[in-house]
């Protein structure tokens, strides 16, 4: 039972991480109608910046905001140089152009930081376990990830639904020309939104950095899972992204933890051992296929498209 609760917490933590990535993707898609494969590159950059800046400033609390700022700046620069020219184009153009950007960023990171990965060490005050339930100790850092991401989700909700800036963003999504005609600098607004998405991806990367190794291509696999999340949630919907992130995070973690045992009940031990790893990695894709059969637009289709 304790093990089950622990796995559930792991699922929530993975879900939260996916939410940070998916929120940026879905925001950029919902507002600029842009498919951004290079989102994973920004995740990777966030992790690299954090590993470097934390080592450089010798302070976790100083390095992390600086890394976040750096990813934001890179994101906005990418928008101004490349992405801006892709708005309004075919989705195939987005896929190709941002595929080119992935190649560029992977190689750039290899050029700057070298082919070997990096490690970001947690400060000792974060590297502890806290009692979540009687008898269950859970790593403090993972609890921090869950709490911080929930705060980020609330902040995003507040930003988009309750502020003037959010109002402009939503208005820009439904009618770009009209917002421009009313005297709003829509280009700047888009640059900001892209930067925000980039910062969210970078944040996900730097939070994950102490748990995994920081390495080239780290953003690519998780990006595909983030795509699964936004497809399940309904592309363009932040609420959908939140629900689907939790759902996918749970299914993936619980599946990996318990599916092999379940399989052993119905198959021979040898067959189960062969089939389990493949089947448990397939689980979220099967989930996505099932959702798309029932609701081709995802669980929470964004209202205006």
């Amino acid at each position: 039972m304790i093990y089950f609760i622990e796995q559930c917490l792991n699922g929530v933590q993975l879900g939260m991480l996916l939410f940070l990535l998916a929120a940026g993707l879905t925001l950029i898609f919902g507002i600029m109608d842009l498919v951004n494969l290079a989102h994973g590159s920004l995740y990777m950059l966030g992790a690299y910046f954090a590993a470097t800046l934390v080592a450089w400033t010798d302070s976790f609390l100083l390095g992390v905001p600086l890394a976040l700022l750096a990813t934001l700046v890179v994101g906005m620069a990418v928008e101004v140089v490349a992405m801006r020219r892709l708005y309004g184009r075919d989705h195939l153009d987005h896929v190709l152009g941002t595929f080119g950007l992935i190649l560029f960023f992977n190689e750039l990171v290899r050029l700057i930081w070298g082919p070997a990965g990096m490690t970001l060490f947690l400060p000792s005050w974060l590297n502890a376990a806290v009692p979540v339930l009687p008898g269950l100790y859970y790593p403090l850092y993972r609890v921090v990830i869950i709490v911080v991401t929930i705060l980020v989700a609330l902040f995003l909700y507040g930003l988009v639904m309750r502020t003037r800036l959010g109002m402009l963003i939503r208005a820009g999504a439904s009618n770009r020309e009209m917002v421009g005609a009313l005297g709003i600098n829509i280009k700047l607004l888009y640059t900001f939104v892209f930067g925000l998405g980039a910062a969210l991806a970078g944040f996900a990367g730097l939070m994950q950095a102490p748990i995994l190794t920081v390495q080239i291509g780290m953003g690519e696999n998780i990006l595909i899972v983030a795509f699964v999340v936004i497809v399940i949630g309904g592309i363009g919907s932040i609420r959908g992204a939140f629900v689907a992130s939790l759902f996918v995070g749970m299914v993936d973690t619980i599946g990996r933890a318990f599916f092999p045992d379940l399989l052993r009940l119905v198959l021979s031990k040898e067959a189960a051992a062969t089939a389990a790893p493949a089947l448990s990695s397939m689980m979220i894709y099967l989930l996505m296929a099932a959702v798309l059969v029932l609701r081709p637009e995802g669980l929470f289709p964004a209202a205006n498209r």
Partner: protein
Amino acid sequence: MTPMVNARNLVVAALLAFLLLLPVYAGVTGNPFLLTLFTRIVILALAATSLNLILGYGGMVSFGHAAYLGIGGYAIGILASEGITSGFVQWPVALIVSALVALIIGLFCLRTRGVYFIMITLAFAQMVYYVAAGLARYGGDDGLTIYRRSQFDGLNLSNKPTFYYLCLALLLGTIFLVWRLVNSRFGLVIQGARSNERRMQSIGFPTFRYRLTCFVIAGTLCGLAGALLANHTDFVSPAMMYWTRSGDLIVMVVLGGMSSTFGPLIGAVALLVLEEALSGLTEYWQIILGPLLLLVVLFARGGIDGLLEAASLRPRLGGGADAKVRRG
């Protein structure tokens, strides 16, 4: 109509002549590497041609086409490791399994449109990738070495020129097949559904069935490319169908020119020769290739074939408009 002798036809003719004579040149100069490189290019051109059928003509942006490359390859690899080396068994199995998988994937994916289609095809390819990585009996992540190439009576696939000509013949056959297909009634329905599916439906065409058939044909042809690739490298691994490989195939099609008969071939040659040249230049060649792709997307939308076509049409008045109509 454009005149028979124009820049575009000349380039295609020169390219075909080059491909036909390549083994002779490689034999004379004693440069086997060139032959190996071009065998690979020809095989991937075959895969790109199959992708062009759905992507260019059908408007179905499949981001998971490399999955069939892997399925065709694994069919050969698994049969070979189980001791079945006859090509007359291996190749039909590779084609049938690819077709079946394409049918299943197509049944799900073709219900969706636009970005959803891009992402669900990507996800299915990823699923196939994990299945292959999970096949512990057949090497799992590390892949599977093929000790004996497919056995055909009277055809020795281990002979490099023979194998090259076989690949080239299959490529040209595929290009011909795709050309006949898209100019048939079937192909016109597919292209009609690309520009306006609802209109095609209201005229009375069950577009879903047409698109699904097209999707399965493309998958099967790519499975053939996979079977060739497995024989070429004597090795199959999940990396054959990693999602970046699907991206490469899209790049080939778009770089060469979408919905053009020889576009994917031109694109495959251009991309792989460029990769080879750049990697000779610097270790960090992708830092050049990436932005180059972006530039192609931004400024040369019709790909190389589009540029050639523009060059062919320039002397004539109104040629540009003509080209636009054809491209839809």
